[in-house]
């Protein structure tokens, strides 16, 4: 195809929808290794009670099939031009965040809707009402980790998420010629009506009756997280492996010129100010909100606020934005 024909193509993609899906790994033995203790010995982590099924599973006791993704809003693997892609800004505007004139490989979860939509967390308008997933497309997901931390001591972390949706999450990757590497931009949206963490395994000592289990559970109700990593135009997400086999995760300074990253840039005027203003106006921010956090209480009914226990109330981090981040690993 010549250039004019090619430019007429909007971007090709493949959509995926999961139809009548149930995932149940409770009969399998999964162990995660390579986490060591202070003396260098392996601390195996057993993964149990791993399931994904229709919402209303009562923490995995009843697994029914569910759809995930909708035919009009599927999971997608797209190859598109940077100028064709959009992200949702805090004020509801869709803005371009990826650089123009390059091809971007995008893996998306069911997208958010530009108009209309469903409540992302039922009964909690603050989380947004532009999710494409309806109640029939939300899932229950659970997993249990057993850490054999010391002789005779096993720590159990039993997670159960109720009515989970991840609409609007995506991962975008493209090649950055200035930096000579693969860079990206990612957004992880997690909407959960309930999120429970029980620190014991049901049926074991001190964890048999409903009251005992409730006392050992931490309840999150009406929670959502919009984690934004990277703003393609001036702050792409860089994940490098260094020459000594360690990794570096970096969000570079958006006002700097990537061709000359150490040179000074005056942000009070000119290109420096333009970059700063554009970044603060359009780069997506991270929000993590737990509308109710409770430890040791009891839910009177599914999806309802727990009573009793210690109520930590509302906890939130809103509008987190990085002007710079560099995380470098090293051996402990």
């Amino acid at each position, binding site marked *: 195809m010549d250039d004019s024909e090619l430019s007429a193509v909007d971007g090709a993609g493949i959509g995926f929808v999961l139809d009548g899906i149930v995932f149940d790994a409770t009969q399998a033995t999964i162990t995660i290794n390579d*986490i060591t203790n202070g003396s260098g010995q392996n601390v195996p982590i057993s993964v149990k009670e791993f399931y994904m099924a229709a919402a209303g599973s009562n923490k995995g006791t009843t697994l029914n099939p569910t759809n995930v993704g909708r035919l009009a809003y599927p999971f997608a693997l797209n190859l598109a031009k940077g100028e064709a892609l959009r992200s949702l800004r805090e004020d509801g505007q869709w803005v371009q965040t990826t650089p123009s004139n390059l091809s971007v490989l995008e893996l998306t979860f069911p997208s958010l809707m530009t108009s209309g939509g469903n409540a992302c967390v039922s009964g909690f308008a603050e989380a947004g009402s532009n999710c494409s997933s309806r109640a029939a497309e939300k899932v229950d997901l659970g997993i249990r980790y057993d*850490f054999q931390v010391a002789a005779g001591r096993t720590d159990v972390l039993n997670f159960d998420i109720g009515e989970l949706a991840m609409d609007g999450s995506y991962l975008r990757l493209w090649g950055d010629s200035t930096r000579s590497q693969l860079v990206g931009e990612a957004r992880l949206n997690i909407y959960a009506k309930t999120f429970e963490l029980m620190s014991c395994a049901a049926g074991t000592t001190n964890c048999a009756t409903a009251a005992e289990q409730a006392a050992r559970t931490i309840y999150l109700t009406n929670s959502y997280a919009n984690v934004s990593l990277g703003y393609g135009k001036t702050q792409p997400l860089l994940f490098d492996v260094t020459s000594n086999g360690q990794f570096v995760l970096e969000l570079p300074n958006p006002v700097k010129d990537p061709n000359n990253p150490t040179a000074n840039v005056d942000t009070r005027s000119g290109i420096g100010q333009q970059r700063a203003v554009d*970044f603060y106006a359009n780069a997506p921010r991270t929000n993590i909100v737990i509308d109710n956090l409770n*430890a040791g209480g009891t839910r009177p009914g599914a999806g309802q606020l727990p009573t009793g226990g*210690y109520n*930590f109330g509302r906890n939130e981090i809103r509008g987190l934005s990085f002007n710079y981040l560099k995380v470098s690993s090293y051996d402990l």
Partner: protein
Amino acid sequence: MRRSFPSVKTACAVLCAGLIGSGVAHAKLEEMNDSELSDVTGQAFINLTTDAANGLNFTRVNFGVDVQTQLNIRQLRLGKYDRSGEAAGTADIDINNFALGAVDDVTGQVDAFRIKNPFLELAYSGNKVVGVRMGFGEAQGYLSGDINRMTGNIAVDLYGKGSYLATQMNCAWYDLICASAKGLVGGTYANSDFSAQAQLVNGSGDADPVRATMIGMVDGQTLSIPSGSGFDNFLLGLFSSSNCSLLSTQTCFPLANYGTFPIGKLNSSNQFVSAAKGVFLSLQTQNVQWRDQQDASQFISALAGAFMNIPRNADGSAAINTSFQEAFNGIPRKDTCFGTPNKGC
């Protein structure tokens, strides 16, 4: 006529990628000594350690990472629930325009906040989680924010010259003791470095570690001259802060006055020379004694609720050091946003 598919049992496709056989047959199991053991363990940046103290068990995940960051959070609120003895609608930790690190508009450079060896620790009573803390082995840099409420243990060292301190002392005309103290402080001790310890307080000089709005000297706290003689400090010991006042000097200040706190020690040219150790943020359902990272025989008592710990270093110096002048006048907020705004970006 249509052929039916062969039955499952007879149709098995086997794909084998491995060809070379193993040579394990003659391996003899031998106990490894420590040096051999350390040879074969994989290198990794996460490890898990355990602890037990005061009837609680602890499990800690340590991350071998070095973080440099400059970030802004518009609203940081932890523990917004009704708490007895506190005003309704307040939170344990409530900071607007929170920022770590600072920026320089002229050069576009970032003055990053440094964190080393962060960890996540869970406290268990039996098999019940009673607390979780996120700690930083070392933290160094500027912490900024409009602090509405703070809960925790925030250790501050105030320092300054006698000459400045004297200017803040307002003595009533009949108060001879105050007048003579002022004379001494501004005269004999004008050039001496005074120091005082401050922490979260309420307006009456009581320690107020829960939802505090002020920072200052608690009742009974005295000034000292670190390099002074025993006699100097004896004299100072006669005068202690009471009801937020010491020798007619105001000793408690609203947290809102402080736009930025330096975490770690600054030298005279305002460069960071050492980091604060033992900084952590925790949530607990009961009072929990968390082990002090700086002194394994000590514990930090964190109250139920959300709690921020910015403690004294092992050598007794506080993580936050500010001058008396800054304490009285407030510390202006450092610029944490590029371009025109200096916060809220």
